């Protein structure tokens, strides 16, 4: 399946930099705490070096030096702990923000992009990638900083003891540099692939879980098992690739580490034997070099984690408009937020001019549709399945922008309406029913969060749902993990939601198809009373709806082929008349 977009390396770096600089004070505190902690850690070897020299000479300052060592150990432990806490606080703050921005951005993505990517990719990004990034932010960034600082301070210490003794360390530089360059060039892509493979696994599992009943009915168990095995094989291949990279890289690095210790010991030792440096200096230098191993090892280990975190961040940022991620249907154009719209004229209704639309290039599902709907009119759209009715409905509601032509509401192109204005003007309820995780009330007030219980009750009454809803209780949890509602109840909730939003134009796409015909017709009429004066565009297969409408538009193969009132069209004896006869079970026509 096509995944959600992934941000480029450059965007990731730029964003990471901006994130780091967004909280300069907090970051400075973290770095300062860690730096002081690391500096305290350096006192140990130095004090030991002195102690060794003193005690071999028979000078007894053991208690004093030990007390000093203890002091520095306590300081190091405290400072590091505090640093870690500060880093975690900062990290959680940044992560929560990234996660929230991700969701906000996903909510603004083209519908097709999100739906094709599916649940697995989304969940993997909001959980696994955020976790990986959390690791990077909480541990990798401070650890990298602290390691770099420790290395700098240790090298500084080495130079102070004797510049000569710092030279042997340089033997490690060429291999470290070359190996790290080689590795970093490949790691990012490798980890991206790894993360994507986990999205696939999650997607497969999500399908199995959501379709569990179908799996049982069609005895698809083996097939779902094959699917997880295929996904596992892909994930394993991705894991093996990064493992191969590490198998080359890590031993090279490890070997590079031991060289400076040996060099300092042997070369420093030779210097000492030549009388060029003191015994204490060689001892301290060797200890320092040895001590360098840990921070360098840490630095490289955490740089690897930063790679992983970078890959995760790329996936989180990929959905941003400025993140280098592109949508699939050109609706990336930002929607104006402010009330920057001029020329709105409530008297002009909905106008459709020469509208074409394609989900896939070259396959238009709408071909040059023209339609004018007067304010307050009730228009029904009928026609064969696949004729483009639902697509037209989505275009009318501004869910998709037209490929060619214009859709205007009150004289303003729907694409130019700010989101809040658009929804108070046109709203859409489709045949897809979805109950959100939350209470019954939450589900109803989704489009108007400020609505009070009275308004909620009115809305539920308008869609004949007050009976079961009040019995259940407005505060009852529904949706995944809560009380399971029937599809018909879910449709009623969707309509109640719409009543509460109260837009002047409503697009109802098979919005009552899951209710039984009598209940549906009753609901439609009670709804009509509440919606008096509103423009209603109803897409329906049940021709009651068409019969009750002011005008009927018949669509076929992406075009409007007939338009007129029910009586006119029946009298005309065309496509609608045939449909009408057929709908009554009259197969003479």
């Amino acid at each position, binding site marked *: 399946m096509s995944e959600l977009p992934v941000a480029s390396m450059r965007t990731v770096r730029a964003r990471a930099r901006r994130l780091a600089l967004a909280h300069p004070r907090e970051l400075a505190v973290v770095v300062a705490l860690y730096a002081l902690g690391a500096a305290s850690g350096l006192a140990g070897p130095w004090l*030991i070096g002195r102690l060794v020299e003193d005690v071999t000479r028979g000078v007894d300052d053991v208690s004093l030096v030990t007390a000093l060592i203890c002091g520095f150990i306590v300081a190091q432990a405290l400072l590091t702990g505090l640093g870690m806490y500060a880093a975690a606080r900062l990290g959680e703050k940044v992560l929560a923000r990234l996660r929230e921005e991700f969701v906000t951005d996903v909510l603004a993505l083209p519908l097709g992009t999100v739906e094709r990517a599916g649940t697995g990719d989304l969940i993997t990004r909001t959980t696994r990638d955020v976790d990986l990034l959390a690791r990077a932010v909480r541990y990798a960034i401070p650890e990298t900083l602290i390691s770099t600082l420790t290395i700098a301070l240790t090298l500084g210490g080495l130079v102070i003891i004797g510049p000569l003794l710092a030279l042997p360390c340089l033997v490690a530089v060429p291999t470290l540099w070359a190996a790290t360059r080689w590795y970093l060039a490949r790691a990012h892509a490798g980890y991206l692939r790894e993360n994507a493979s986990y999205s696939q696994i999650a997607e497969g599992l999500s399908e199995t879980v959501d379709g*569990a009943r179908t799996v049982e009915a069609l005895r698809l168990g083996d097939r779902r098992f094959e699917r997880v095995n295929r996904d596992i094989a892909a994930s394993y291949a991705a894991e093996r690739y990064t493992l191969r990279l590490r198998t080359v890289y890590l031993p090279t690095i490890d070997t590079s580490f031991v060289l400076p210790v040996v060099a300092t010991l042997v070369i420093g030792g030779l210097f000492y*034997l030549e009388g060029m440096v003191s015994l204490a200096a060689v001892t301290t230098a060797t200890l320092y070099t040895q001590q360098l191993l840990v921070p360098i090892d840490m630095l490289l280990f955490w740089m690897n984690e930063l790679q992983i975190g970078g890959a995760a961040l790329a996936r989180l940022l990929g959905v941003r408009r400025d993140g280098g991620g592109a949508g699939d249907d050109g609706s990336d154009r930002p929607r104006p937020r402010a009330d920057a719209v001029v020329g709105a004229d409530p008297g002009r209704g909905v106008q459709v001019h020469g509208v074409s639309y394609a989900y896939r290039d070259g396959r238009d599902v709408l071909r040059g549709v023209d339609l004018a709907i007067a304010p307050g009119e009730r228009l029904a759209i009928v026609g064969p399945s696949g004729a483009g009715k*639902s697509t037209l409905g989505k275009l009318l509601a501004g869910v998709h922008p037209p490929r060619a032509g214009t859709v205007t509401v009150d004289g303003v192109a729907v694409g130019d309406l700010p989101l809040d204005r658009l929804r108070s003007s046109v*709203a859409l309820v489709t045949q897809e029913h979805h109950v959100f995780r939350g209470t019954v009330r939450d589900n109803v007030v989704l489009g108007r969060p400020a609505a009070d219980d009275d308004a909620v009750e009115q809305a539920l009454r308008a869609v004949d749902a007050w009976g079961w809803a009040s019995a259940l209780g407005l505060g009852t949890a529904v949706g995944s993990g809560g009380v399971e509602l029937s599809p018909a109840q879910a449709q009623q909730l969707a309509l109640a939601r719409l009543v509460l939003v109260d837009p002047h134009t409503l697009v109802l796409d098979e919005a009552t198809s899951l209710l039984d015909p009598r209940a549906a017709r009753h609901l439609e009429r009670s709804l009509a009373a509440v919606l008096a004066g509103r423009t209603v565009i109803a897409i329906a297969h049940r021709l009651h709806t068409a019969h009750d409408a002011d005008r009927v538009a018949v669509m076929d193969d992406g075009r409007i082929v007939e338009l007129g009132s029910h009586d006119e069209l029946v009298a005309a004896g065309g496509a609608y008349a*045939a449909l009408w006869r057929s709908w009554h079970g009259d197969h003479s026509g």
Partner: protein
Amino acid sequence: MRPFPDPDPGRPDRLTPGRYLFWLTRLEIGVVLLGAFYGCLWPVAQALVPYAVGRAIDDGLAARDRSDLLLWGGIVLALGLVQAASGILQDRCALANALGARYRTLQLVTRQAARLGATLPRRVSAGEVMSVGVSDVTQIGRALEISSRGIGSAVTIVVIATIMLEASWQLGLVVLAGVPVMVWALSLLLRPLIDRQSRLRDQQSELTSRAVDIVGGLRVLRGIGGEEMFAGRYREESQRVRHAGVQVARVESLLESTRMLLPGLLVALVVFLGARYVLDGDLTGGQLVAFYGYAVFLAVPVRRISIAAGVVMKAHVAARRVVDLLALEPELASGPKRLEAAASDLHDPASGLVVDGGRFTAVACSRPADADAVADRLGRYTDSDVTYGEQPIRDLDLDDVRRHVLVVSNDARLFAGALRDELDPAGRADDHRLDRTVDVASGADILEALPDGLDTEIAPDGREFSGGQRQRLRLARALTVDPEVLVLVEPTSAVDAHTEARIAERLAAERTGRTTVVFSTSPILLDHADRVVLVDAGKAVATGTHAELMGDERYRALVAREEGEA
């Protein structure tokens, strides 16, 4: 490394978290032990470095012996190489262990979800299963990943203590006694950490469930502009997770400080005592340096053991969720009797509905919920007194029932993949057959519009198709499966009258000689049935052909599409 996935993940023997982790470990025991071997080799080589450095200082420098200096320098280098090799080998084993556990658990969870089938959504939320599949499997993998490192660390501590004992039994004893005390003290902090972590885990799972809602609900949100409120709720939940995360960090930082402090103080004690021995002439300067090195070095294995303990505890929490899921049993028990293939009547005593074997029966229910309830009973998705032939359906083998009776409602799902595989779950039909069933479902136009026809990869749940298109694809799939008994619930509710008429006509012909039950209130479909049953308030009240029943007031009120008041 051995290949994954394992074709058969096996079956955990007993479903408790501890046993489950043990079971996973046992399956990978070879690699775990090999990893432990490298895990020992690595720190031992590292532990010997201070010793070699000490000898280089004592024998080479203090004694001014160039060849000893070179000898011990060479040994330090050799130890470094051993470390590099054993390090990566251990990493490879650790990864194999982690992946083995993770993949195996995923296989078990998938198999269990498929086994539970219709029971699954009634017993556990989708978000919870996804949390298990995404987070908990990773956590369990980490426990196996760290196992060899943990064993290696324990061995290292023993080795270091032995070396120290040999050089100075007093200092060796201090270390031997000090380490268990440290590990014990650290483990005291682990419990509150794990508690907070599992609280965090619960909140993350809630947040995951919210994210799951996006894909399913985005169409709805787009339609009415609920994005902002949804984002607002997500933000609230996300902030709760953030605060829980900070709570965890508080304990973690304390633990981290203690992990530094305790080994540090042990080092100070060793140095203090060692320096005294040097003053007394019992120890050399080089030995003291080496002792210092050992003691500093000990911090690493102690830390690792403490970390490993934390990881195992977390994995235990994760394993509990896994075994809880694996322990669920399908609500329906399979009966002992096999089902012989014969066109038999189905009888549902609860409603009084009788379905004739081999014929096309339509059922018009006055309440939609009745249609689902009766269909569920006929297909044995709930237990009832339904009989198939003369046999109570609940006495029959459940798999046989699923093979013979297929219930298709509008909740049936399409899966991602090639459309061909989707339409032909058993993989037995050829193109000709598929074209025919698609044609019966009046879906030829859907295939034509697809770039690669039957080989087109479709999105999860066929989301790119309209409701009517999906409904026709589901019907085509059911017809390809060609079960003895096909129960369809409102199979044409989302298609237009023309299409419905075509489907009704072709469906009756296609299913000739096989049992078909259609729940619908559409006169177009009802008119094509051999027999129509009217179910009012849950009871079968009238039977006849569509034309005959039109004389019944209740029936006409339900199905007739009159222009007046409904």
